[in-house]
C-alpha cells in the first residue's frame, strides 16, 4: 500500500532546543493513526511541520507526493488545530462558506456540512455565541470539505461530549473507509485504543514507540495483575500456594510477568474448590503509555 504521508529522520530545533529529533513515520491511505505524548512532547510541532506551517531543519517529508506546504499538498490535506478558533463576528454558515470558496467547492454544501456535525440549528448564529464544543465542531466541519486525502487532527475531541465523540469517530471511520489517511493526536487514551489502527508515542521530541496496541503491550512486557477472591476461610491455603500475593480487603492481589501468566493461572486452577473468583487485569493503555513515555528519562 502506498503511503500518503512519509517522514524520515525529521529534526526541528527552536533556538537550540530540540523539539523533534530523528522522527520517522508513515501513514498509509485508509489508516487511522494516533499520535500520543505529553504536553510539549512535540505533537503539535510535528503536525505544523507536516502542514508546512513551520520548516523542518533536516529530514525528508512527503505529503501526498509533494513537499509540505506546497499548493498541491495543501489542496489535499485538511487540518483541525488544537482549540479551533474563528472570528467571533462571523456566523457558522459564513465561516464554512468561506472555507468552501477557498477550496473552490460549491458553497451550497455548507448547510450539509454543518448538519453533518450537528450544527445545522446554529448555522446563522455568530460563532462568538458558540460553546467550545460547537466551535470544535465548526473545525471538524471544515476538515470534511472536498474529500481530503490526509487529515491532520490536533486533539479533535477535546471539548466534545461523549455522544459527539462517538459521532466524530464514526465520521472518521467513514473517511478512512473511503481511503483518507488520518493522523490524530489525543490525550483520551481509551477512545484512541478502540478507534485507531496504530499508535505512535512521542516523548521529548523522539518517537519512542510505534505499532498496534497488541504490539506495544507485548513490547512493554508490563506485569499482569490478578485479583483472587478465596472462598471464606481458604485465604491461608491460597497464600501458601501463591506466596507473593498481598491481602487487599477481602481479595488477594498478585502481579506476574506475561510469561508467568499461564503458569500462575494453572496454579490458581489447581485451587479450584478454594477460589470463588479471579479477575485477570492486563496492563491498561495508560500503563503502556506511561511506560514508553517515561522510559526516555522523564
Amino acid at each position, binding site marked *: 500500500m502506498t503511503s500518503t504521508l512519509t517522514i524520515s529522520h525529521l529534526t526541528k530545533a527552536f533556538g537550540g532546543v530540540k523539539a523533534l529529533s530523528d522522527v520517522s513515520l508513515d501513514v498509509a491511505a485508509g489508516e487511522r493513526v494516533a499520535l500520543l505524548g505529553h504536553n510539549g512532547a512535540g505533537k503539535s510541532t510535528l503536525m*505544523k511541520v507536516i*502542514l*508546512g*506551517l*513551520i520548516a523542518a531543519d533536516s529530514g525528508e517529508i512527503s505529503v501526498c507526493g509533494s513537499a509540505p506546504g506546497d*499548493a498541491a499538498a*495543501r*489542496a489535499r*490535506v*485538511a*487540518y*483541525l*488545530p488544537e*482549540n*479551533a*478558533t*474563528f*472570528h467571533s*463576528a*462571523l456566523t457558522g454558515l*459564513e*465561516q464554512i462558506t*468561506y*472555507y468552501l*470558496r*477557498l*477550496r*473552490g467547492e460549491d458553497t451550497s454544501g455548507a448547510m450539509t456540512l454543518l448538519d453533518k456535525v450537528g450544527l445545522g440549528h446554529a448555522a446563522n448564529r*455568530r460563532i462568538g455565541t458558540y460553546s467550545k464544543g460547537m466551535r470544535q465542531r465548526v*473545525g471538524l466541519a*471544515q476538515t470534511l470539505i472536498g474529500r481530503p486525502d490526509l487529515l491532520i487532527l490536533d486533539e479533535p475531541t477535546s471539548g466534545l461530549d461523549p455522544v459527539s465523540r462517538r459521532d466524530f469517530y464514526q465520521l472518521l471511520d467513514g473517511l478512512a473507509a473511503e481511503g483518507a489517511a488520518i493522523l490524530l493526536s489525543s490525550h483520551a487514551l481509551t477512545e484512541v485504543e478502540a478507534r485507531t489502527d496504530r499508535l505512535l508515542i512521542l516523548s521529548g521530541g523522539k518517537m519512542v514507540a510505534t505499532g498496534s496496541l497488541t504490539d506495544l503491550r507485548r513490547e512493554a512486557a508490563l506485569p499482569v495483575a490478578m485479583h483472587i477472591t478465596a472462598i471464606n476461610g481458604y485465604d491461608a491455603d491460597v497464600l501458601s500456594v501463591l506466596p507473593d500475593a498481598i491481602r487487599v480487603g477481602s481479595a488477594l492481589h498478585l502481579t506476574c510477568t506475561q510469561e508467568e501468566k499461564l503458569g500462575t493461572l494453572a496454579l490458581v486452577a489447581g485451587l479450584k474448590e478454594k477460589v470463588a473468583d479471579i479477575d485477570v487485569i492486563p496492563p491498561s493503555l495508560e500503563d503502556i503509555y506511561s511506560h514508553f513515555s517515561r522510559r526516555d528519562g522523564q
Partner: protein
Amino acid sequence: MIARIFATAITEAHIARRNRWVLIAVGLMVVFSLVLSAVGSAPSGGLGADRLSVTVASLTSLSVYLVPLVALLMSFDAVAGEVERGTLPLLLTYPVARWEILAGKLVAHTGILLVALVAGYGAAALIAVAGDPAAAAGFAALWRLTWASTLLGATFLGIGYALSSLARRASGAAGLAIGLWLGLVVLYDLALLAAVVADDGGIFTTRFFPAALLANPADAFRLFNLTASQATAAASGIGAAGATIALWKSLVSVLVWPLIALGFATLTFRKVEP
C-alpha cells in the same frame, strides 16, 4: 485566484459590517464633510472660485487627516488579529497564497472606504451645488479628489497591514498605527514648516523641501489635489508652500505609494510564522 481573493473580501466585508466599521467610516466622513462645507462656504465670494471647488479644497485638507486614520484603523488588526485569535495557522493550511489573503482584505477595506468617501464627498457636493448653480464646474476636481483619496486609503491600508504583520499583536499594531499616523500626517508637516522657517529660503527650502513633501504620501496627496485644481490659494500652510512643485511629480507619488505600501505589506506578511 480571483475566486479566492473575493472569498476573503466577502468574509472581511461581513466582519466589517458586524463590527460597525462600515457605519463608523461612513458616519465620520459624512459628518466631517458636512461640517466643513458649512464652515468653508463663507470665504468663497472673495476667491472668485465656484463653491464646489472651494469645498473640494476644504475636503482635501480634511481627507489628508481622516482617510489615513480610517484606513489604519481598519487594517491594523488584519494580520495581528488573526495571529492573536489563532485563526491564521488554519487559514494558511488552505490552498490560498498569502498575497491572495491580503488582496482580499484590501478589496473589502478599499470598498468600505470608497463607500464612505462617496457618501461624505457626495453630501458636501450636494450642498455646494444646491447653493451655487456654477458649482458644476468643480465636478472634475471632486472626481480627482475621490480617486486620489482611494489611492491614499490603499497606501495606508498597505502600511497598516505591514505594521500588523510586524507587530504580531493587535495592541502593538494599534500603537504603531496611531504613532505612524501622528508622525506622517501631523508632526511631519510641523517639522517641515519649522525647518523652512529656520532655513529662511536657503538650500533646504529649494532642494530638500519639495522632495520631502513628495516622499510623504499624505503631503503628496494634498499637493496633487491642490495643484491640479489650482486651489492652492484656498489652502494654507504646507499646501501653499509647495505650490512650486510640478503636477506630474505629485501625481507619480500618489500613484506609486500604494504599490510600495502593498509590496511592503506582502513582504512582511510572508515573514510571519504562524
